């Protein structure tokens, strides 16, 4: 139990230690801690915001996808309808064309047949005239008897 110079030294050491802690230790530990705390809070807030944004983006992507799918469906349906239409159109056009061709062919045939008949008739007429001329042994005046001959030919 005694008091001596140690007391004064102790107080001086203590004062220096307080000064050192106040100057170099406390602010340099607490400052960065608070800064880190702030950054962590910021990071968490940013993460929350990012998550929210992601959710929103996902929702919008889904709606865009749905819309696109719907539109694609519509387009496919339209295309199918168009294809059917074109096919029907082509089929009917082809049928018509066929019918037209058949009709034209019939016409041609009829025409050819008529012409052949005509030629045949003329030739038969000519042969008949030639035969008659031979029979009569005289030249028939073709011009004079043309009306008669063509009438005859028409009868064939």
């Amino acid at each position, binding site marked *: *139990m*005694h*008091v*001596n*110079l*140690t*007391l*004064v*030294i*102790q*107080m001086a*050491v*203590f*004062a*220096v*230690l*307080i000064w*050192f*802690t*106040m100057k*170099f*230790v*406390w602010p*340099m*530990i*607490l*400052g*960065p*801690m608070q*800064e*880190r705390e702030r*950054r962590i809070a910021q990071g968490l807030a940013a993460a929350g915001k990012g998550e929210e944004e992601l959710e929103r983006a996902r929702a919008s992507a889904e709606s865009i996808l749905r819309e696109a799918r719907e539109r694609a469906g519509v387009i496919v349906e339209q295309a199918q309808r168009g294809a059917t239409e074109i096919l029907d159109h082509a089929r009917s056009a082809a049928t018509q064309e066929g019918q037209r061709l058949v009709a034209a062919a019939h016409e041609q045939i009829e025409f050819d047949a008529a012409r052949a008949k005509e030629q045949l008739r003329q030739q038969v007429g000519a042969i008949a005239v030639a035969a008659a001329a031979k029979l009569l042994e005289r030249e028939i005046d073709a011009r004079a008897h043309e009306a008669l001959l063509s009438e005859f030919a028409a009868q064939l």
Partner: protein
Amino acid sequence: MAAAKPQIGGYILEHLTFLTNKPQTSLVNFTVIDYDTVFFSVLLAVLFAGSFYWVARRASGSVNSAPRGFQSFVEMIVEWVDSQVRDVYHGTNRLIAPLALTIFCWVYLFNFMDLVPVDLLPDLAKTVGLAHLKVVPSTDLNGVFGLSLTVFLLTIFYSIKVKGPLGFLGELTLHPFSSKNKLVQALFVPVNFVLESVTLLARPVSLALRLFGNIFAGEMIFVLLALLTLEHSYAGLASLSGWGLMFLQALLTFVWGVFHLLIITIQAFIFMVLTIVYLAMAHEHH
């Protein structure tokens, strides 16, 4: 047994004697120095300041990385001290929190020296020729009063700074008894002054003696437990009772050490909290 008594007394006395430049005979003598207290105080101060400064250097450069190991530990202490200060003091004084941290860590380290086996360092000191060594600065009155008086001076300083010299004097003389009547008030002034002075002066004394008493008693228990095997020394190991005593001493020392671990922490904590409270009171206006 009678022959052993001087040995026991000498052993205890040895553990109560400081390493001084000369023997101190009077209660107060400012030409005497306790070398051991000064040495261990400064050593522990350097340990505290050095390790915390090391962390501070690392902390300021690593805001973006997570703290690890010792840095986490130090940051935990700093944050805890900060919350303790915030609970009591709401002002802007930038001294109180670092002061509280310094006190808690330094006093804790003082007290922790108590857990070093009582004879280890004194016996080592004897091998280099030092007759005495007291390793726990908080069992030196100078050590504890050095802290409490510094806190006391800071309290007075901030009281005067915040409230002005007249405000401080008023605080000492106008409470707890006051009256509207000027004459009665004048009569109350000396009474108040005596009461308030005692209150004021009791603070550093109680602050220092509470810590001193607890740690001194703890050290004393360790010393007394060491007495169990003192008489027999190594010769005691030849008998069963010698082994029994040694085992008993080891067990009791361990149990007391665990309990003392709690005491040294609580005492450091109390010293810190009271310091915060006293300084917070110095900033309060009545």
